């Protein structure tokens, strides 16, 4: 943690972080795994990143990272509601660190009744607080157009819309969800379709889905159930310790696209990478 509370920030240090929501219209498509790995990969590139678990009732971020938070979003919002013009995010986040890579987690409430009592207004205030301290805020959500999710998506620069092609009802819901998002005014380029588990057993063609959606997939993640499962049981984002697997590579490619980054492996002109990074910081 560099910016401990009480430390005076210099003007150029005040950030205006980018909010990225990970959303889907079906459950169990890999939102949490994707959120965690996007966060870890951004952190690996040197950004200050916070992942927020907005699956308030059944959030899995802490499970997948094997961390036990002292404070959660519930404690944070209580403080927001009570007064607090100066929100100190650092009091409520849990820092994840592994092999020198570090990022922040704002955990889902521990108790179900706490999850019930979190207002969307408070979450919006929290997010704008986080914005001033982080380069990226990644939001993991639930598969519903809830008031909270809609507010989160409103604030987001990019919505990562995760889908799997398993059977027709799932694809119908993706289409319905996409149409809904378009109808409430989200720009096309705000919504990025990510297909997860491309090679899973299915007899539905990718092209057919794209035709139905009238959109292309921005990125396709390969199917590697074993690596994914193994990573969540170990509690380590796979871009950190399994970055050479096909899935690890593909997740890094996704962040390359999101940050307009070029990795050393992509180009012999290595210094460009850090130059690019600075430019987009």
């Amino acid at each position, binding site marked *: 943690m560099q910016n401990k509370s009480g430390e005076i920030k210099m003007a150029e240090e005040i950030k205006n972080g980018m909010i990225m929501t990970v959303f889907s219209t079906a459950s169990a498509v890999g939102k949490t795994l994707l959120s965690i790995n996007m966060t870890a990969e951004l952190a690996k590139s040197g950004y200050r990143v916070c992942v927020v678990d907005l699956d308030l009732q*059944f959030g899995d971020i802490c*499970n997948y990272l094997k961390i036990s938070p002292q404070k959660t979003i519930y404690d944070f919002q209580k403080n927001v509601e009570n007064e607090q013009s100066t929100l100190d995010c650092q009091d409520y986040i849990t820092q994840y660190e592994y092999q020198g890579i570090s990022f922040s987690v704002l955990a889902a409430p521990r108790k179900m009744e706490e999850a019930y009592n979190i207002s969307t207004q408070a979450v919006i205030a929290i997010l704008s607080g986080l914005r001033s301290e982080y380069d990226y805020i990644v939001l993991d959500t639930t598969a*519903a157009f809830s008031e909270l999710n809609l507010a989160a998506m409103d604030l987001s620069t990019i919505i990562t819309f995760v889908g799997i092609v398993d059977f027709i009802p799932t694809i119908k819901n993706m289409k*319905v969800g996409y149409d809904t998002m378009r109808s409430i005014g989200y720009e096309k380029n705000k919504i990025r379709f990510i297909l997860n588990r491309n090679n899973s*057993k299915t007899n539905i063609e990718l092209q057919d889905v794209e035709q139905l959606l009238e959109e292309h997939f921005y990125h396709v993640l390969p199917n590697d159930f074993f690596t994914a*499962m193994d990573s969540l049981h170990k509690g380590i984002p796979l871009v950190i310790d399994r970055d050479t697997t096909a899935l690890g590579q593909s997740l890094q490619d996704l962040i390359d696209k999101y940050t307009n980054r070029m990795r050393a492996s992509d180009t012999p002109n290595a210094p460009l990478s850090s130059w690019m990074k600075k430019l987009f910081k």
Partner: protein
Amino acid sequence: MKDYHVLLVEPNNIMLERLSSVVRNTKGFELVFRSRDPQEALGQGGAFMPNLILLDIDTADSVKTVLDFVRAFPQTGILCLSNYWNAQIASDVVKAGAKGCLIKPFTTDELAAAVNTFGNSGMGMLSEVMTFFSPKGKSGKTTLIANLAMALAKKSGENVAIIDADLQFGDMSVFFNLDPQSTIVEATRDINLLSPITLNSYFTPITENVRVLCGTKRPEFAEDVSPKAFADMITMARSLFRYILIDVPPAFNPISVTAAEKSDKVYLVSMVSGGYEVNHMQRALDIFKVWPDYETKVKTIFTRVEPCEKQEQDNLEKSLEYPICSILPNEYLLVSAAANNGRMAVDIKPESPLARSIDQLAAKICDKQYQVR
């Protein structure tokens, strides 16, 4: 079609004339006796050998009147007539022996539909409402409900309904390849104007005795369904169906909580995929612990259990620390093929392991019902 010989009791003269003409104009119905006075009907009606009694119950003591008629005409079906729908009274008269309730005035179509519906299901109030809740979704819950409804209908021979209350992303219409005329949005919107018979027409038939109330056509319509109207609709549906299976969205929200509260049983459904499903199940169970009878009301089901054996169920039970009602095997390909073709009702073969497991669950549910409530 069977001929109905109708005995009509209605105190209001104008209404009596009006209803008489409806009965006479309904195909297959013959008005054999009518009266404004229940006592007169009790005394003289028997001579005309009615096999259907339409009985006004907007009287001081509706239950007593029904009991009198049941005693005088034990072999005759009784449909009660009322100016308005009252769930409590409807429940009371059915307990007293009537087949169901019809709201006055009714049309020829409604009369015919009422006789069909109540003729099939008989005791409307002896119904069991089951809500299927899954903490995180993607549990195979929709597949389970679709197949369980079919199995229950087959086993019991009675009317079964599915209510798709997964308002934003309900899949029931896709599973059965339906293009419904009306959905849960219209049914809840109109509920104050409906009676059981007219509500029945909002359900889309799948087979002779299985009907589905489909979910919304677009997610934004979900906002139009108020929990209060939804609750009223469930109560009214009880007089139409022996079993009602409700599919609710993942996570606790006003609709899933309402469904759970209106249910006799809540089934928590989760797949097993090596993640944190058991933890989520425990979290969900915790919420229901405020019910004093939660151990009898809340049941758990795990899907995609491999191998689907007793040993595995015991292991799951141990880590869950709660009894498991049923485990279902993984038949991903079979299910997805059936769902893709909208042939859920016909493609899942009864000899498949999944169908057999669901059959056993249906048997459990049916058996329970024959115990005294």
